[in-house]
């Protein structure tokens, strides 16, 4: 069959291709084009003008200071939850627990409301609270994997739902705002991230996200521990023979991922006007973890690539509002596009498959039909 001579697949394959050559970037671009293309077809079928819609999307996402600021504000938490997935993927594991860790981080940060701290110190304490909560929440799946052999996909799915209901409970009963029962207590004014550009949602939280991404980049690519994490994911057996303690790297990558997702939640609580609180339905923090996985995949699990892909998805989210107002297209279109992009990226030899199609139907696709 058409199996011969192809690179390794699965997490290992993603990594291998993520490390060498330009092909991964090309694949991300192909996926984005396919996703947007199918989106255009769906829009056309449901009676919208896709060109008009995408023009509006572009305008709302990137064409002004306000648009860019909104996109960056949407991108910051996605970059962080994407890192949660990416760090563990680099270590050879599938951590889909960012969703729950975000909830824990967001709720930990709103407890700042119960403390009186000077500005400056308050933000630091809030970040520490959020990161600690996220890390603790990721610790149990990590330990279950290391000591009981429980598959991390299963345990993180369970933890996401446990934290979903735990968060609903905490918001409704424990952290509830005495004045408004539809949300938690608010992060006090002095503990919030200041707004960076007046009139937008962009706060200093975006620097926290960028800084964390850079720290992860340096840690993974320029320190011995980071090398061990990547080696463990790249080739577990060789890493083991090389003396790398796989248990330690597993727990470490999970903790780093938990800190990242917790920070995403904390940034949402401390840096999102006007509420600076968590709503009863978790509406503003729900799905950040899942959407972050798309960011990680398009960014090829590389912190620097993910800054670009987070901006891309942040721009989609920000531009969707403009698209709805100008072209009438429901904002949900963006999730459709995102789903198609992820599905496309799941196919390991995207380029290879195109080649097969070209070979089989040369006239249809204009190829030369080479053997």
């Amino acid at each position, binding site marked *: 069959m058409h199996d011969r001579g192809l690179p390794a697949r699965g997490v290992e394959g993603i990594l291998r291709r993520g490390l060498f050559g330009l092909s991964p970037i090309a694949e991300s671009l192909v996926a984005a084009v396919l996703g947007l293309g199918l989106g255009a077809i*769906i829009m056309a079928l449901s009676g919208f003008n896709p060109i008009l819609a995408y023009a509006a999307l572009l305008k709302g996402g990137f064409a002004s200071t306000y648009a860019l600021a909104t996109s960056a504000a949407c991108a910051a938490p996605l970059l962080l939850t994407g890192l949660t997935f990416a760090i563990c993927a680099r270590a050879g594991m599938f951590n889909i627990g960012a969703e729950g860790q975000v909830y824990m981080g967001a709720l930990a940060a709103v407890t700042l409301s119960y403390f009186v701290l000077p500005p400056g110190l308050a933000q630091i304490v809030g970040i520490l609270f959020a990161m600690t909560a996220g890390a603790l929440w990721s610790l149990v799946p990590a330990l279950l994997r290391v000591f009981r052999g429980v598959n991390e996909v299963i345990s993180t799915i369970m933890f996401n739902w446990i934290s979903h209901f735990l968060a609903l409970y905490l918001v409704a009963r424990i952290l509830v705002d005495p004045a408004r029962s539809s949300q938690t207590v608010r992060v006090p004014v002095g503990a919030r991230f200041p707004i960076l550009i007046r009139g937008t949602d962009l706060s200093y939280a975006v620097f926290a996200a960028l800084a964390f991404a850079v720290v992860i980049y340096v840690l993974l690519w320029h320190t011995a521990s980071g090398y061990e994490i990547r080696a463990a994911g790249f080739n577990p057996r060789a890493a083991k023979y090389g003396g790398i303690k796989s248990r330690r790297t597993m727990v470490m990558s999970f903790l780093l991922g938990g800190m990242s997702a917790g920070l995403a939640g904390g940034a949402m609580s401390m840096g999102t006007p006007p509420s600076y609180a968590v709503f009863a339905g978790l509406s503003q923090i729900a799905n950040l973890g899942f959407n972050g996985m798309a960011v990680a995949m398009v960014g090829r699990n590389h912190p620097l690539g993910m800054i670009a892909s987070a901006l891309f998805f942040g721009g989609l989210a920000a531009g969707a509002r403009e698209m709805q107002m100008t072209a009438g297209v429901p904002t949900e279109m963006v999730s459709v596009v995102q789903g198609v992009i992820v599905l496309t990226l799941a196919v390991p030899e995207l380029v290879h498959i195109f080649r097969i199609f070209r070979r089989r139907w040369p006239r249809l696709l204009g190829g030369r039909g080479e053997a």
Partner: protein
Amino acid sequence: MTWNSLINILFIALHAMVPITLTAVGEIVGETAGLFNIGLEGILLLGAFAGVLGAGFAGPMVGLLVGMGTGMAVGLIFSVIAAYWKGNQMIIGIGINLFAAGAVAYTMVILGQPGYRLLSFENRLPLIRTPAGGLSPIIFVALVAPFLVYWFLRRTRAGLILKAAGEAPEAADVAGINVNRVRLVATTFGGMLAGLAGAYMSVAWIGSATKELSAGRGFIALAIVVFSGLNPMLALVGGIIYGVFQSLAIWIKNTPGITFLPWQVFDMLPYVVTLLVVAGAIGRVRFPKALGQPYKRE
């Protein structure tokens, strides 16, 4: 707790058990053949929405069939990417879930009912009347299906072939079995049951589809598959336990005087129990050796 509320809790539990059990049993078939589909949540949602559309168009039976067809189609797409194109199964599942959430919500807006789709009463699947209340006929499907699938997996040649594809794909290949095709058929069947489960929720049980209708049930089903160790009968037990928990949570939410109890605990318990079972019994529960790995000839 009065006699009446006890009957009520039992009836709600029976109805709540159905989508979980059907989805879990379908996934057991797929996982036995070696494909791990975490896109069940999305299939449930798509099945529920397609079911409402079909039922609104041509009655409840058509609705259920359309839901099953939708589930089959998604299962087919999943298995083509996973088996033939060797895609990463986790990523495909995540993609399906993202796509389903977007596509359903988008279409609901297009059709003029943002966030939901109502089904008129005469297009819902009628209940079977009993002296204590109405029961959906699909309940009996969910009660019988686990036994049929158990028999199929343990007692038939085809069931053995399925197991071989998940347990030892190389050996199966050498024995002349088309591993990828077996996996494709198994996962498409699993998708069909998940699609039926979705359509049951909207067409037979609730009478409408909302964009949050699946509400984690796909993941609960996955949890119960793990909990059951790929035994369909244990999946039925898990489904019933879940049904009771969910029914208790609903009861607490709606009964004046006890709403101070944290109903969230009952919604949370199935996940906690699954985690404990998996953590405690992982040595005992064995999964197919090649589960989650694409098969490629050396």
